[in-house]
């Protein structure tokens, strides 16, 4: 098992429209700030188990844990630039994607 270094959130793509979603406390959220944060390895494993369940339930695909840091407001922000992009949308089209308030579940 990989070493647990940072808090983590579970990230996935919604099956029907491909939108990026995050596992929250009551289901999948499209806003990463509402993601449930795993602060310990066991919590991350629990998130992954929920992810597997929802893969089997054909709700999401491409599910994985992403490292985050927690801001002063308590909301998680991804650490890696790839996931930083995924929570916003294309950096060359600021008028599209989550950063433009698009998408809904």
């Amino acid at each position: 098992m990989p070493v647990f270094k940072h808090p983590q959130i579970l990230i996935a793509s919604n099956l029907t429209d491909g939108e990026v979603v995050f596992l929250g406390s009551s289901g999948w959220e499209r806003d990463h700030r509402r993601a449930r944060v795993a602060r310990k390895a066991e919590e991350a494993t629990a998130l992954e188990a929920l992810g597997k369940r929802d893969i089997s339930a054909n709700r999401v695909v491409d599910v994985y844990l992403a490292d985050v840091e927690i801001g002063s407001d308590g909301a998680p922000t991804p650490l890696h630039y790839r996931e930083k992009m995924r929570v916003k949308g294309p950096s060359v089209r600021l008028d599209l994607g989550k950063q433009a308030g698009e998408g809904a579940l």
Partner: protein
Amino acid sequence: MTAVDLRVAQRPNAPMTTYRYDEYDAAFVSERVAEFREQVNRRLSGALTEEEFRPFRLMNGLYLQLHAYMLRVAIPYGTLTARQMRRLADIADKWDKGYGHFTTRQNLQYNWPKLVDTPDILESLADVEMHAIQTSGNCIRNVTADHFAGVAPDEIEDPRPTAEFLRQWSSLHSEFSFLPRKFKIAVTGAAHDRAAILVHDIGLRIVKNDTGEIGYQVVVGGGLGRSPFIGKVVGDFVPREDLLAFLEAILRVYNRFGRRDNKYKARVKILVHEKGIDEIRAAVEAEFAAMDRSAFAHDPEEFERIAAFFAPPPYESLPATSALLRAAKLETPAFANFVDVNVGAHKIPGYAIVTVSLKPIGGVPGDATSAQMRVLADASERFGFGELRVSHEQNIILPHVKQDDLFALWSMLDAAGLATANAGLVSDIISCPGLDYCSLATARSIPIAQAISKRFSDMSRQRRIGKLGVKISGCINACGHHHVGAIGILGLEKKGQESYQITLGGDPTFSASIGEILGPGVTAEQVPDVVEHLVDYYLAEREEGEAFIDTWRRIGHARFKDVLRREGEDGADI
């Protein structure tokens, strides 16, 4: 009636010069759409798992990307009718976000389709004889061709009948839908290679032998990606009647020896590289001699039937040069620049080939809005027999424009933001989607292209620099052809940051070469500086008539490396 008249009579608004589906093709495509609709339904109901569904969606050009699904639509041999272009625009508006991305594989990619909508999109495409088949997966991918096919003055024969002939042959061969890896074929019929045939799995060059007979020089084992290779000649002159059998022999040798154990090694280029071209040639020749070739006999009638679809449009007889054009150039310098840079010679007197750049300064290379697609469709109908081409440089070509009409066309394009006069210049950058869209990316590529384009926004400076291919990929898969850029840029990840490796000396034409690494990776901010220094160095060193690549070849890589090293000493951390 001639073949063209017949088609016009049968179909109002008929495309003049592209392949028209017959009943078989139409049935095949609509069956595939129905089949995919069923597969999507079964996926949504949970009857298919993602693992089971994935190969089906890839076979239909549907990928899952960073922010959404992505649908890749084939534009076989890059030829498109006005009606098809309008349909692409309509789909962008109805099911996507009002734009599309033209790629180096002569495809169009939609970046935001919903899974639930894709069967409807495919149906809408099928209605205008388009599809997304063979745009992904380990099959023979859509065959690409010179985008100046049929109109270039340096052409021996239009490569598109060959490309279409091969497309039909490969679509029919289900055993080749499960090759060890994907397989890409490109065809050119011209003296200059605009189709990058030396970096495809198989490249075909139409040639004439001493007796004037037409045949093919067959090149095998080219490719980019993780291990770039220039293709090698496996057949110097393959007569047309032997072409299918010869390609079949290559595929059999590949299927027999190709490595399926390791996906990075499964490409034909690796086989050619590991065994050597002599051994491969011997194996192909032996297979060719031994096989029952009757099943692959050339069908001249079928070839002629296909070729008739590419018959030239009804050109007028015109003087070779246009007084109107000359006058308009004198009057409007911006137009004169456009003509000098984006307009090429046509084989028919009085006509011209127009490249419409999809690389406005600071824009996203290859992107077109639905409104722009409609302008292009209208322009092609008003000025170019309703035909368009997509080039692997991610631009649109209007292949038959009367010189007399160039000014009116330019005015129309200019009003739609489509008259950037940079074809082939430093800001005509090939860029893959990179980390702005692509889930495989290790770094962004579009913003790098934009930054370089802005750095060279002075168009007169660009013209002074001359032909220069800058090509950018966002990961080692090399979709942006960086290996064959005179200046190639590869986005990588280094210590959690985006980092860019620069190569020099790549060339995608008959004089093909793979670029050499300049030095350690640089940051995104440094890329435009480095490119500018390299360009300035070339300008200082170049001799009369030399393009960047020529100067680089003459004075050598080391001298250019010194430029970067010196810059590092000047304080930049590179």
